[in-house]
């Protein structure tokens, strides 16, 4: 695909003295070995949070939406904030696997598998909020355009909420197919290494009979490109349509044309932060430091910094245009955001999303693993508050001052949200012990060009050559 020559100034993407077999062993180790104590502790905590969430959801379904903090004025708050937050996090996976593939970024190969897993797991969390907000989730299939004879009602095609259903279900399906396609050769690797008949059976089913013949690889490469081409507009479309949920309205603070691209930038921003959070832990726990290097973390930090700056630019644009518009309702909406009763959430959003990523300009900070981890958490908090600010502050001061109110989450709201975090980590922890967490087949394809081992070998071979070449230049 890409050129086999790499400039000497490029830093290696696989560090240490690794050969092809080492990659196989390193990637298979977490799957083939036994879970350690830390894994069980983390899993138990996640499971407990998940079960607590299940309880809260059961209570919601049994009693009704009245158990939530939403009220007549603020009819949308906690649930939609969480929905948008989770969908946004999912974006990084598709961006890494599709957009970075099209841009021939080799460093994506170490992180795409986990980022895509994160996408799928977070979209599952996201989908739960609208479903349970329906009140009668057993009628959730009514959001599908099913003929009236079936008993449901025909859907409203003019509503962005319906577009959301289509966008997110398409996104989930394409992401799943993309993820699984990439997994096939790696599952086959686990299958071929399996020692018990049971694991062999499981992984041979999962690998869809991958044979490793040239034809398989040729189809694999082609389908990856096609899926990348399909998924790239999807990255833009999903959060664009999520933003339409708000921007098509006439509510000051929601109706603004910059919302689609700014939501997409924000989604990539939060998604990369979550990838950093997960991978910084995973590379340590699963001993993958040779593949997920500091350079990978640095590059993700740079993307966080860029998208954070784009988001910041959009915040300032919104503020300025609200003043420039001369529309007092628009001006009030933004004044209220910054100085009203929810000023603290606005301040959190601004500091976490705009100010904090700017520290990444310092090389020392963006290559520090601890600092990267902290910033990634800070950004995720900030992006949660961004949605909260947009949604709640625009609603809580509505057109009738007598109905002005505040939003107060209940323990059910909190439990549901914590439950989704628990569920997400349950899925991710199970994934990290049963799936090849690094796309080892792809990593092997850049071994010769980008690993420290081969770079050194090449230098030794061509060392004299290069030297005379540079002498020749002057």
């Amino acid at each position, binding site marked *: 695909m890409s050129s086999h*020559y790499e400039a000497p100034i490029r830093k290696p993407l696989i560090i240490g003295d690794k050969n092809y077999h080492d990659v196989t062993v390193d990637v298979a180790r977490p799957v083939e070995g036994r879970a350690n104590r830390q894994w069980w502790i983390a899993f138990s905590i996640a499971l407990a949070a998940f079960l607590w969430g299940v309880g809260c959801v059961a209570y919601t379904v049994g009693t009704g939406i009245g158990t939530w903090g939403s009220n007549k004025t603020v009819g949308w708050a906690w649930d939609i904030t969480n929905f948008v937050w989770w969908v946004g996090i999912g974006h990084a996976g598709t961006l890494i696997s599709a957009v970075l593939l099209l841009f021939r970024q080799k460093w994506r190969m170490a992180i795409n598998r986990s980022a895509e897993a994160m996408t799928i797991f977070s979209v599952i969390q996201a989908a739960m909020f609208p479903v349970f907000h329906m009140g009668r989730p057993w009628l959730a299939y009514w959001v599908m355009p099913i003929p009236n004879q079936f008993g449901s009602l025909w859907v409203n095609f003019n509503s962005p909420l319906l577009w959301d259903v289509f966008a997110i279900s398409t996104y989930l399906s394409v992401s799943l197919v993309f993820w699984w396609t990439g997994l096939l050769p790696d599952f086959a690797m686990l299958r071929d290494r399996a020692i018990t008949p049971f694991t062999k059976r499981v992984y041979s089913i999962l690998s869809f009979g991958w044979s490793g013949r040239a034809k398989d690889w040729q189809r694999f490469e082609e389908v990856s490109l096609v899926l990348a081409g399909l998924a790239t507009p999807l990255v833009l479309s999903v959060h664009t349509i999520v933003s339409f949920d708000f921007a098509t309205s006439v509510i000051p603070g929601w*109706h603004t044309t910059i*919302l689609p691209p700014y939501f997409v930038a924000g989604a990539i921003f939060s998604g990369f932060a979550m990838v950093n959070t997960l991978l910084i832990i995973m590379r340590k726990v699963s001993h993958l430091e040779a593949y997920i290097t500091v350079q990978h973390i640095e590059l993700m930090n740079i993307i966080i910094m860029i998208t954070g700056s784009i988001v910041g630019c959009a915040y300032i644009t919104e503020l300025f245009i609200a003043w420039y518009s001369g529309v007092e309702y628009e001006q009030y909406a933004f004044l209220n955001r910054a100085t009203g009763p929810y000023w603290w959430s606005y301040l959190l959003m601004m500091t976490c999303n705009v100010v904090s990523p700017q520290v990444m300009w310092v090389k020392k900070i963006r290559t520090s693993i601890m600092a990267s981890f902290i910033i990634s958490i800070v950004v995720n908090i900030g992006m949660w508050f961004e949605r909260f600010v947009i949604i709640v502050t625009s609603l809580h001061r509505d057109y009738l001052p007598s109905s002005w109110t505040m939003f107060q989450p209940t323990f059910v709201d909190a439990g549901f949200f914590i439950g989704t975090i628990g569920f997400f980590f349950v899925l991710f922890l199970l994934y990290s012990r049963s799936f090849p967490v690094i796309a080892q087949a792809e990593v092997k394809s850049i071994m010769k060009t980008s690993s420290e081992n081969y770079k050194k070998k090449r230098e030794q071979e061509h060392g004299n050559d290069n030297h005379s070449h540079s002498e020749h230049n002057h």
Partner: protein
Amino acid sequence: MYTFSSRLKTFSFVLIALGILGIGYSFLTAPKTVEDVEKILAAENAHGGHGAAHHDAGNAHGEDAHGHHAVSHDEAAASHANHGNDAHAEADHHAGADDAHAAHDEHQEHLEHVLHQLQNKPWSALYIAALFFMLISLGALTFYAIQNAAQAGWSPVLFRVMESISSYLVPGAIIVFILLVLGVLDMHHIFIWMDEDVVAHDHLIQAKSGYLNGPFFLIRAAIFMGGWIWYRQYSRKNSLLQDDANDNTHYKKNFKASATFLVFFIISESIMSWDWIMSVDPHWYSTLFGWYVFASFFVSGITAIALITVYLKGKGYLEYVNTSHIHDLAKFMFGISIFWTYLWFSQFMLMWYADIPEEVVYFKTRIEDYNLPFFGMLAMNFLFPVLILINTDFKRLSWIIVMAGIVILCGHYIDFFNMIMPATVGDRWFIGAGEIGSVLLFLGLFIFVVFTTLTKAPLLAKRNPLIEESKHFHY
């Protein structure tokens, strides 16, 4: 080294000469007085030409025009027919008091209105073309900065082409700046908010005057242009010094300068688009506008890089450029065309859906009075490039790139036309000597400056640390 062929040089001079003639003609033939306008309107009625249906309606004509202008061109209408009198005249009219007199007033106002529109027309045509060609070179400069900041390995063999395109930024920005100064000096009326009489009767513009005022407007323009030109000159200097360097110092300097430029650019570009384009409709606003304008000139800049690369390759230069490089440029043309459409759709759809009168009037005017350029632009900027460039093999064929590139450049010129003209000339638009002349003038100047710069340095940035990757680029 590249030599500027005398044929191409002559061609650029011919374009400049023709352009000056066209522009001169358009200024000379613009109506000077109300009587001239009356003649033009009479001729239009007699021939049943442009806008005949609109003006034929006899007495209804006054009401029609005003109803129309009050909604569609309130800014343009405000330029002379101040709103107070409008309302007064119409109230009189409807009350039935002194019908003839009111009708006469309205007719007179309408004539003045058309006079101002027609006087704006050659200036607007000049401004659109000046701005468009300057932004093409700014788009190429931004692309260059992104390549540097991203340490892209495929593109260094194209760096000298990009540097030459961005050399037009210096004369281009100076010309645009002069046009902005002339606006502040009241020489033309592209920016209606610069007219004190209008501001005196317009509460909305008054509220914005802290931002929309002559001195601050020019200070911003000077800072933005100065910043862009500084980065262009600095990065070019480093790029040339790197050719004969022993280490990567100049390359590293360019890397840092490019990252800094991009930060400056993201801020200055948005504000520039509000100032120089959005403020021609001073009542209207859109938060997306800056990024929409960016997508438009960014794809134009990339297209210019592709066209000039294909031209030089055809002449036997750029020996290391292969079809893979061309393919990548075509992919960017394809991708950014879709990105532009995405932003166009986001802005249009949200305003259309919400249907807030203050906002939707912008698109209502364009669909009613600019129907062909408005929808034609979508065909040129989206349908055509997407359908033709989606094919992998086509992205490697020179004649396809040239054809798609010309359509894209024309389409984005029309995009800028649609952004400026409705506010300045209303429904009195047509593509005449002024429009064509302005495009020819700046195209000639652009070719002359860009190809002159190409002769100044070797076409290969030979000591760029990524140049070997770029030479070997093949997939």
